[in-house]
């Protein structure tokens, strides 16, 4: 097996493992933003386990790559991954989660390893723009990856940031749109029809449209990012990831699963779906 396939498989297996943990969490802790967590999992897993070059010893290092989860209601995804990477004890996170007064809850609160606390939507991209500007001033060539939700893009502040970053060629900024097709109450297309590619391009961004659940395409998108070169300049990059809420779990598709919990039977079904999805993708690889 070549190295590229091995990496795809590693990240895919890791994403499946994280998905299972999300479902177990929805069983153990009750209602969470399960749909959006599952749509974002592949893109975020690839970042933390490869592209961020995440290092527990360099959490405060000025030259680190940074991930800003602007769709902060999926904060549990980052807590889960940071626990898996050894920053937190997961049982500790769960215990704190159950204390509603504690900072760890549904949203990305201010805590070690969380670059920017988010939850109210429409802030992450502007804050990432500020970090990108500061890094450019200091000649720091790392990247700032900011994930926004498609529902979150209704917030006007995102477009202020997109206009500024595009106009000022912040080539160290990457915006990932988790285009999971629906927000809390409606499906995309019912209320708002949007051509993300045309919109970002109009504001001076480079756009890559991918299947956000296909690890080959995810890695190709991240791999294709050019090295940051402030002298040469360049456009900020938007990766529009076509995803699905509740990805790969058959009973969990659509806006009804924006939030939810899983009983024992549903959890069992969900785990089967995740394993089947992984198996199917590996068979596809073998066929190729």
């Amino acid at each position, binding site marked *: 097996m070549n190295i590229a396939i091995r990496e795809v498989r590693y990240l895919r297996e890791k994403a499946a493992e994280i998905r299972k943990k999300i479902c177990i969490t929805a069983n153990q802790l009750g209602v969470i933003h399960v749909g959006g967590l599952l749509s974002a999992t592949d893109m975020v897993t690839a970042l933390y386990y490869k592209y961020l070059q995440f290092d527990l010893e360099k959490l405060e290092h000025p030259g680190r790559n940074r991930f800003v989860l602007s769709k902060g209601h999926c904060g549990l995804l980052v807590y889960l991954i940071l626990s898996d990477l050894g920053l937190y004890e997961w049982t500790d996170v769960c215990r704190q989660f159950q204390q509603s007064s504690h900072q760890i809850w549904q949203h990305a609160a201010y805590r070690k390893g969380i670059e920017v*606390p988010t939850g109210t939507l429409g802030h992450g991209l*502007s804050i990432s723009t*500020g*970090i990108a500007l*500061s890094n450019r001033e200091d000649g720091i060539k790392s990247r700032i990856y900011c994930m926004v939700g498609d529902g979150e893009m209704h917030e006007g502040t995102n477009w202020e940031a997109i206009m500024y970053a595009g106009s000022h060629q912040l080539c160290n900024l990457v915006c990932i749109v988790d285009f999971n097709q629906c927000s809390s109450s409606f499906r995309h297309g019912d209320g708002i029809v949007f051509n993300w590619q045309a919109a970002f391009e109009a504001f001076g961004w480079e756009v890559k449209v991918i299947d956000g659940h296909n690890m080959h395409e995810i890695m190709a998108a991240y791999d294709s990012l050019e090295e940051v070169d402030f002298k040469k300049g360049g456009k900020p990059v938007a990766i529009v990831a076509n995803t699905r809420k509740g990805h790969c779990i058959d009973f969990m598709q659509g806006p009804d699963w924006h939030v939810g919990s899983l009983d024992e039977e549903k959890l069992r079904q969900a785990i089967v779906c995740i394993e089947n999805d992984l198996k199917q993708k590996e068979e596809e690889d073998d066929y190729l």
Partner: protein
Amino acid sequence: MITYNKSVQVRAQNKYGIFYNYMVDLLHKDGRICYLACDTIMEDSNMRKAMEAYPNRVIDVGIAEQNAVDIAVGLTLAGKIAYIATVSSFLAIKTLEQIHTCIAYCDIPVRLVASNSGTAAGATHDAICDVGILNAIPNMTVIVPSCNHHLIKAVEQTIEYAKPIFYKMPQDHDEKIYSEYMDDAFEIGKAMTVCDGNDATIIGMGAGVSYGFNAAKELLASKVKVRVIDMHTFKPIDKEAIIKAAVETGLIVTVEDQNVQSGLGAVVSAVLVEANVWCRVIKLGIPDEFLKHTENYAVHYGYDPKGIVHRIKKELAGTGKGEC
């Protein structure tokens, strides 16, 4: 149209020129300093030249204040010291969520410098409750200097301050109370006594300080000696100075160009109630209503020097204090 617009900008530039020039000096001296504007950097200005020299540190986001505040958060998270200066009704009200959640909750030491706070530019642009709103947000420090000279002092001494700060730019930029009358060492949370007296106390904030000081000078003619306190830090407020004034003078008059319901008058009253100190408090400023067009709000609402003198004489009548 263009001529009108430019003349407004020139007036603003002159009014706040001391501050802008100070910021330009800071930008030259300290590579951590960033300055964010919202369509307010004039052609041919020193700040425009600084923007050309430091394109990543002098940032005009255009008419997008919410973006400016969150960009400032990002700059600060990456090690910069970011100042945003623009009109208060946009900076403190339009961006309230950014201030509340991204700055205050995270305790990010962004500096917000608000012009036209209080009564300055017509009802939609007047910010008569900005400091009252910000007072309600944990982690915020709110500084309301009485003159530009003092604004610079405050900024100068808080560059390294590790908390978010809201500075309200003074309206009466020509007033130079301190440079002429006293040593003005600025310390956050420590009110300054402009002049002493025991017949009554005027606690002023921002424009209220010069109104109060001029009223106190006038009252001397009636042999009434009034203490004038400059409450330049609205939050954290100097409780000790308030309680001491209440105990020693027995009458407090608060003067501000803010809504007295949420501004200095309200906070001073609350401090005294909490401390269980009885004292008559007269709250002069804007009542709880939106401003209607008038020539002079201070005169209209009775918090100009003449109005203050009138109220204090009325309160002291029959008390044997001075010749009231």
